[in-house]
């Protein structure tokens, strides 16, 4: 972080504080047009070979894994999965929680970082939001098809009916239905609204033809007038304000599925914050996993800079440490409960038949992010990528530990039996990975993957007072001044 000292306002004590220069969010003094060209180029130019190499296999895997897997499942029965009367929720719910966790970074980046004026988000929020949408779509498949009679899943909707029966609003699963569908809907609105000005940009660059018509419709006729921008910015702020509690609530509600149960190892008040931290943790890891390669492939190094990666690495470090704390706190609470069922639940997680899952979870989620304390690690993309991959895998294991290990060793030892996933379990999970990648590839191909308008706005000259040197002595350095905290 290079810093230069310039003149700064006096504090009330009269001490002149040095102003640290913020690192530039856009390197090389790129022009507005360059930004437009570069980002729209991704959509307008022919896709690199790598795109096809990724898209075709992912789409095939998605078709076979998700399409074929679900067909077999629905036509035959949930028994094609590995779930048993002992472990009623096996891989499907592990995968559900995994994907829904990943689906947190997008909205979090957009909403919370927007509210906290973290301008560095602008380069990554679009892709992260897309990731949210796709991850929630992948996640939704599991609980929806996990029910034994999927053709009666509409029983979950409070529709007036001749049977005069209603839903149970005390059930966390019903909360989940509302939470996940709300989250998906609001995320979709947020994503789409954010994209409207950029779609207009693409529209305006298109030659007349079908493309222009389609982008024209999607852009809704956006003109970029300030009378639109004014409401638009308010809408964006409101959505951010709504999404912030929403994003926290979704994984809290998912965690209620566990926390409100009586199952030892699930029934714990630490779950909501623990799950939310875990979701952010895993979500950022997934953003890194996807953005680092995309940055190279599309030459977006000037927009997604090392600063972005550094910031995300720091968030991973923070949330990873929170998650690690939660893991340890769980153990302590179990020990402190004095109840053999609680203590055993954790004893068997650590040392029981699935000890390897616990070991994987601990080392990948708690130990691996600790490397981010070191700047060298944060700056080496290979290391960052490796740790992000570790976290992705580790977070999957966390859900596996929570769900499978616990259910396989519950209250009555006479009932204990371990769980083995079936081929269909694995097929569907791989299928959703394929679906996620394929959708992401399509997103890169057809939609602006970086928020063009917001990125332009972070340029220093975007400030209307850029030229007023007298009023703003620190002009030209940054869009918003940040003063170092007073040292007392």
């Amino acid at each position: 972080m290079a810093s230069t000292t310039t003149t700064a306002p006096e504090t009330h004590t009269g001490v002149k504080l040095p102003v640290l220069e913020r690192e530039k969010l856009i390197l090389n003094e790129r022009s507005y047009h360059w930004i437009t060209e570069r980002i729209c180029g991704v959509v307008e130019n022919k896709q690199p070979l790598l795109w096809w190499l990724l898209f075709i296999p992912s789409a095939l895997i998605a078709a076979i894994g998700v399409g074929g897997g679900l067909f077999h499942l629905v036509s035959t029965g949930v028994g094609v999965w590995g779930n048993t009367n002992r472990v009623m929720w096996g891989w499907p719910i592990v995968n559900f929680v995994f994907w829904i966790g990943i689906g947190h970074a997008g909205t979090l980046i957009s909403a919370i970082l927007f509210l906290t004026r973290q301008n560095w988000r602008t380069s990554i929020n679009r892709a992260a939001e897309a990731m949210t949408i796709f991850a929630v779509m992948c996640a939704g498949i599991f609980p929806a098809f996990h029910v034994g009679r999927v053709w009666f899943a509409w029983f979950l909707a409070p529709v007036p009916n001749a049977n005069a029966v209603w839903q149970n609003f005390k059930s966390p699963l019903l909360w989940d239905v509302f939470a996940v569908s709300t989250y998906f809907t609001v995320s979709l609105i947020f994503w789409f609204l954010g994209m409207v000005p950029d779609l207009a940009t693409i529209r305006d660059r298109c030659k007349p033809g079908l493309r222009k018509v389609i982008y024209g419709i999607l852009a809704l006729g956006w003109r970029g007038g300030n009378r639109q921008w004014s409401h638009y910015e308010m809408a964006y702020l409101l959505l951010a304000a709504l999404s912030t509690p929403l994003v926290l609530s979704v994984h809290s509600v998912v965690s209620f599925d566990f926390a409100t149960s009586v199952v030892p190892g699930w029934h714990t008040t630490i779950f909501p914050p623990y799950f939310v931290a875990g979701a952010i943790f895993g979500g950022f890891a997934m953003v890194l996993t996807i953005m680092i390669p995309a940055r190279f492939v599309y030459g977006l190094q000037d927009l997604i800079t090392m600063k972005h990666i550094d910031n995300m690495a720091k968030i991973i470090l923070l949330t990873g440490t929170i998650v690690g704390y939660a893991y340890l706190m769980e153990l302590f609470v179990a020990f402190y409960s004095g109840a053999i069922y609680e203590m055993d639940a954790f004893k068997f997680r650590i040392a029981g038949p699935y000890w390897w899952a616990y070991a994987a979870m601990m080392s990948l989620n708690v130990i691996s992010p600790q490397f981010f304390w070191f700047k060298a690690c944060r700056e080496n993309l290979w290391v960052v990528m490796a740790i992000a991959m570790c976290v992705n895998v580790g977070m999957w294991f966390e859900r596996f530990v929570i769900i499978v290990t616990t259910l396989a060793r519950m209250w009555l030892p006479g009932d204990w039996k371990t769980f083995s996933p079936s081929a269909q379990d694995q097929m569907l999970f791989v299928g959703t990975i394929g679906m996620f990648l394929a959708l992401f590839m399509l997103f890169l191909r057809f939609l602006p993957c970086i928020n063009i308008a917001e990125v332009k706005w972070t340029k220093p000259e975007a400030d209307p007072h850029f030229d007023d040197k007298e009023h703003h002595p620190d002009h030209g350095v940054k869009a918003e001044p940040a003063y170092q905290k007073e040292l007392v």
Partner: protein
Amino acid sequence: MSTTRKRVYGYLAEFKSASALYKAAEKIRDAGFRKWDCYSPYPIHGLDGAMGLKRSILPWFVFFGGMTGCATAFALAYSTQVVIYPTIVQAKPANIFTVPAFFPVMFELTILFSGFTVLFGLLALIQLPRLNHPLFASKQFHRATDDGFFIAIEARDPKFSPNQTKELLAEIGGANIELVEEED
């Protein structure tokens, strides 16, 4: 086509930067224009003040939207769980004390309804979707979503006069001043 009389939409002028646009806007505001707008590829901070725009009314819409959602959820849950068909579920009370169990759904529906209000409220306020607009006919206007900064003053404005307005625009730094006409 050629015989049709075209209606004048207004003048479109380009400005070189956000700062230029800002200052120009202040001047047009001071000149007392009402039907005019600044066009930029990104939202320019403070331009609302420079244009004399009021704070958006959208938050009020959303507030009521959210309240509706919350009330809907509460009414739905309470009526079905307590009033119409109370069921015995883990011996949890079927009276007012069961309401905490409804909080998650109340919260979610609050957000959901608010989200929809934001979307539809915004579209209503900015009058979109509107796919056809005279400005789109301008040869330079496409740069408004790329790197162009424009001001358009509409002919509908009572202060509009074909010559003076053009002069005003030129005076405050507008370039490429263009008379935009509605196609028909």
